[in-house]
């Protein structure tokens, strides 16, 4: 995650590149080649080796990643199916997770799914407005000289290993949050999400703590992508707005925001993807519990990724391991859906093409 925008663009052009390459192969005339190249092609019908090699490499990379993802999906599926067959509970609606006795495995993902989605959604809710503020500040308000180093500091946050965030959340942030959490439950406890949860608040291993840490972790991703998008607002639009007498706020509202909205949402979805898959920080922070998730922020539990990480070192039977892999498969699909949604949102706004 050094520079997410740069990373995004090759992916976009890579997609179209494969299409172009494919259509160019049968009939060269249909391919949208600029006129100068067409003229060159008429003079010398053979393709230069550099072209061929580069096209091969680019196509190869594109195919490689698709095959790789397909292979991951296939692996998950192959390992999960035998265990799903041995499952004595409903995989999608059960809240149990007991895989120790392979003769009588009962596991379902409902609680994992809910804890994963709720903790990530709350993290997104916290991170989105802050990231928007930072991105707008960096592109519109901050003096150029300050904006660059500031942006690097934000990017640096993305380079902090998640185990550091986890330990920080458990040892430093958690105890600080305890009084806040206690006052929230006593004052707003009648609202289900602030109700007394199924773990002790004093230990701070709650979804509340986890979400705040996750929010910090996804902040740099959302900020970096949004900043790049806002930075690309056509200067003519901005200048036009200023010429019409718009204030800074009006410039942001009438030019920067409409232009960058889709990019911002897409950035948030990228962040959500990261939050859904976060593992180490959550295994450290979240308290496990035998009770079911009760829709409170002060519940404990486990996410897909943390559940797998907690059990992985002691995998010694492919059947019980398969149960966890089945959970991993659901996470894989969930992340896929989130990313597909992000793509769809971006694709709906043709100004990026």
């Amino acid at each position, binding site marked *: 995650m050094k520079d997410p925008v740069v990373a995004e663009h090759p992916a976009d052009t890579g997609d179209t590149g494969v299409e172009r390459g494919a259509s160019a192969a049968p009939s060269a005339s249909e391919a949208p080649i600029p006129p100068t190249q067409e003229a060159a092609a008429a003079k010398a019908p053979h393709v230069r080796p550099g072209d061929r090699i580069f096209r091969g490499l680019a196509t190869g990379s594109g195919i490689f990643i698709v095959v790789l993802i397909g292979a991951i999906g296939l692996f998950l599926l192959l390992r999960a199916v035998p265990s799903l067959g041995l499952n004595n509970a409903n995989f999608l609606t059960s809240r149990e997770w007991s895989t120790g006795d392979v003769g009588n495995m009962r596991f379902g993902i409902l609680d994992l799914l809910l804890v994963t989605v709720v903790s990530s959604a709350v993290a997104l809710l916290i991170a989105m407005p802050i990231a928007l503020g930072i991105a707008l500040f960096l592109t519109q308000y901050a003096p150029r000289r300050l904006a660059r180093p500031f942006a690097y500091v934000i990017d640096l946050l993305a380079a902090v290993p998640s185990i550091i965030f986890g330990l920080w959340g458990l040892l430093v942030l958690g105890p600080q949050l305890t009084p806040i959490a206690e006052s929230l439950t006593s004052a707003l406890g009648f609202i289900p999400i602030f109700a007394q949860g199924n773990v002790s608040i004093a230990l701070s291993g709650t979804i509340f703590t986890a979400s705040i840490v996750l929010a910090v972790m996804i902040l740099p991703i959302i900020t970096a992508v949004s900043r790049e998008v806002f930075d690309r607002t056509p200067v003519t639009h901005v200048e036009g707005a200023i010429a019409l007498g718009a204030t800074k706020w009006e410039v942001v509202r009438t030019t920067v925001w409409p232009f960058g909205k889709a990019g911002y949402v897409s950035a948030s979805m990228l962040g959500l993807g990261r939050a859904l898959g976060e593992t180490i920080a959550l295994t450290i922070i979240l308290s*496990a519990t035998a009770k079911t998730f009760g829709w409170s922020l002060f519940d404990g539990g486990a996410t897909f990724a943390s559940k797998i990480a*907690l059990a992985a070192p002691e995998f*010694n039977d492919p059947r019980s391991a398969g149960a966890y892999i089945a959970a991993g498969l659901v996470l894989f699909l969930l992340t896929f859906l989130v990313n597909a949604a992000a793509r769809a949102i971006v694709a709906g706004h043709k100004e990026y093409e």
Partner: protein
Amino acid sequence: MKIQRHSAVFGLVAAGALLLSACGSDQNSAQGGASAGATSSVDVTCGGKQNLNAEGSSAQKTAIDTFVQVYQQRCAGQNVAYNPSGSGSGVKNFTGGQVDFGGSDSPLSAEKGEVAAAAERCEGNPAWNLPLVFGPVAISYKLEGVTDLTLTGELAAKIFNGGVKKWNDEAVKAANPSASLPDKDITVVYRSDESGTTDNFQKYLTAASNGAWTQEAGKAFKGGVGEGKEKSAGVAQAVAGVDGAVTYVEWSFAQDNNLSVAKIDNGSGAVELTPETVGKAIDGAKIKGEGNDLVLDLDSIYGSTEAGVYPLVLATYEIVCSKGYDAETAQAVKAFLTVAATDGQAGLTDAGYAPLPKAFQEKLLTAVKAIA
């Protein structure tokens, strides 16, 4: 411009990494100095394969570290790399032939085909389970005003499965007539990751609770109450932070976090956790393996009613080939295990383990000598 800034960032990160790694190596050398005082008492034929690989149970990681330090003092230039990736991985990679010996919290299981797989790895010879490292598990708690608490197996089972919810419950009072117990909820903290410690603790509760523990054993905690924290460090740290919390954790973690350790009454009076009481438990252990395969009958430890025995002990095995190593490897494995079972024992108490009692040590050495 951009590149320069990036390199500045990398520089910072690299400097940070250096700093951190510097801290790490400091600690190691300090430990090495401490155990240098041990005197050599046994003949060891050094040599053979220079770098042994081993993998498995994380519960014995610290013990293996002290063994390796002593091994290197006795046999210059030799080393053992132990990867504490868990018993499951240890057994898998031993039977797969990736490591020279495995570490495991439970002996090879015939049901899961581990015995057969290990025999295949040892070229048709049986693998032996050698219980080398014994780690007492402490029922650790934090309760203001109470530093002397006695639990029976039955009471422990009731606390950990929710039968007893308050510190001033009649059952706790009955076992501790002189303590002033507060009216506080018991917060049970358990291991959220799957672990041999949990498995052994639940085996203990099954054996010693007179039927109060109906949940059986397993690597995942089955008590159904309380909340889980990751690894020993996580549970110990959690208990240290909350008044009224109780957990089961390796002794060294209880000591490091200044937790109170409950005495265990197995029917013959309250027994404190000390190296001596644990040694007595190991001495009383019956072996159910054949010959040099020293598989322990854990019920003989957990269910012991002898006076002065602290029964809650986690036995971890080294899994080795009886035969089938190449000559180089066999020599190094034997040298390492010999050092571990003799000179290596000196530093164990500080690391939170129990040293082997004399009689048991001799059984182990006989087995180690027989490896070929």
